[in-house]
């Protein structure tokens, strides 16, 4: 489903060039739930951003469903992100002036759905994360855990090929974190491909595979016992 070959990402700050990813090779199959783990600054999020087409690698190849992404135009990437991917960010990334329902509806409208069908899908996605009673609340009226669940709903409402999650529990308390991870487990059960960056071993262990990064390189790639 996704193949990464010799991926390099450097950042330039004047004359100084910092290599964050130093030739990463990685692959994920359809339906896999993968955790990317590592110390702070190891390059976990950077790898996720390259794979999810939010950023442009310095060199290397990323193939999604056999399609080389390097040659894609910005518009193609946007369409890919809209239709094939779902994103869950660490800080929820909800639009503050949109209600829970509207936040989830918006990408569906962008995909061309009618308002009625987009809202129906969005309602059903919110119901999957037990937020059917909070449809018309603004993010500011929701707890952190609820906001993250809205974010998950937005990511899954259009049934994406891959769900990318960047430290989805980092800002949540234990109970909310467990709820979000339980939702991920449910999604995985029904075949959703999930690639999640986390620094918490407890949540990494519920995945199929843990990829550990250190200093821009993959140092281990092991299946979990689950």
């Amino acid at each position: 489903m996704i193949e990464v070959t010799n991926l390099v990402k450097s950042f330039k700050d004047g004359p100084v060039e910092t290599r964050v990813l130093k030739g990463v090779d990685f692959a994920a199959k359809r339906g896999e739930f993968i955790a990317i783990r590592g110390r702070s600054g190891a390059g976990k999020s950077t790898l996720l951003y390259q794979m999810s087409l939010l950023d442009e690698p310095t060199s290397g190849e990323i193939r999604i469903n056999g399609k080389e992404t390097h040659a894609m135009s910005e518009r193609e990437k946007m369409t890919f992100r809209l239709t094939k991917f779902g994103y869950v960010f660490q800080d929820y990334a909800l639009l503050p002036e949109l209600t829970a329902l509207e936040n989830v509806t918006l990408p569906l409208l962008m995909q061309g759905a009618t308002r009625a069908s987009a809202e129906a899908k969005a309602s059903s996605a919110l119901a999957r994360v037990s937020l059917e009673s909070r449809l018309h609340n603004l993010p500011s009226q929701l707890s952190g855990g609820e906001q993250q669940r809205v974010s998950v709903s937005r990511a899954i409402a259009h049934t994406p090929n891959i769900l990318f999650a960047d430290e989805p529990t980092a800002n949540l308390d234990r109970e909310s974190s467990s709820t979000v991870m339980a939702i991920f487990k449910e999604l995985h059960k029904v075949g959703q491909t999930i690639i999640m960056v986390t620094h918490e071993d407890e949540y990494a262990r519920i995945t199929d595979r843990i990829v550990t990064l250190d200093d821009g390189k993959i140092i281990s790639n092991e299946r979990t016992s689950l």
Partner: protein
Amino acid sequence: MLSLINIRVGFYLALRQLRRASLWTTGLIVFVMLLTFLNLVVVTGILVGLIDGINNSYRTQYTGDVILSALSTKEYIEDTPSIVAFLKTLPHVALLTERYQTGSTIEANYLTRTSETEKPNATSAQVIGIDPVAEDAFTGLSQHVIEGQYLAHGDYDQVLVGNYLLAQYAFGELPGLTPLKNVSPGTKVRLTINGATREVIVKGFVKTKIDALAMSIFMPASELRTIMGRSDQNVAQVAIRLTPGSDPVAFKNLLLASGIGEKAKVQTFEDSIPNGVADIKTTFAMLGNGFSSIGLVVAAITIFIVIFINAITRRKFIGILKGIGISGEAIEISYIFQSLFYAVIGSIIGLAVLYGLLVPGIAAHPIDFPFSDGILVAPIDGTLVRIALLVLTTVVAGYLPSRMIVRRNTLDSILGRN
């Protein structure tokens, strides 16, 4: 790309951003738009209205809709009685007034002057001989008497004096016009017309912004005729007011076709206004447009700053929108819709204020400029053009900053990196 989906999503976003924006902020931006709209329309409208005020005053207080005056080779309109008789048969004529006119010198201190070397308290002035009743019905001259009383039908040896001839009301000395000092109603003055001298009493003062009247002396036509030594009924002017809806130009052409043009100069009120006034009107309109353009630039900068600040503070969210696949165009369109909202609401309120309050209000109570009773001229077609200009400027001013922010790198925007 301007696709239907982009417009739909842009509208969806804009509507919600506006609905949940701070009421104060929205109110303030709309207020700026309202002021800009008024600046666009009112500044030019007042400047043009200042001149139109002169024209209106000219029409109501002096010329009427059409005026007949003596040919340049004559001092009076020949065969006036038959012309007036003919005019009275025409259905378009609502009112008319006849005026005699001649030059004079008016002297105020002739009784107290002790030596020939003492500068006389005198000035040149035009004397207008009127039928007080007909003139008042036509021009409402009695309403312009600010001191003393208006002329009555049988008055004799009594005059009204225009304000520019009086030191207490004049702007100051003008070339050839030295205002009279120490004159009040009841003062005796000496009037010299064609070598004939007559001692008359000032019955009242007329204050008007029409120069031709403000520099004139009014006396009953019958008396002036006697002083001028005229026994005919030929006057220097016949001012005609037409019935409502009559076209002055068509009426003028009718008179010319009837041969009156051979005995009198026939002019509509517009013809009779000096060319310079029309030039001043054009100049004022240009000045007004100039000031309005500055206002438009200020509005554009205001909207640019408002949208730029809005977009820059929402940069992270713009990044997220792009990250989850919302197109840059849809985001830009959302800002265009917001700018459009501010401009349209500002203009709608502006229209209500303009045509509901300012235009009728100022028409009922003209602005008292020193030389004109200014009105607000705001023709609807010109106003619509200005609204279109304001909306266009606002849309561009709203689009540019949003485009600047939307074009930034998506991930940098999400992560708040520069």
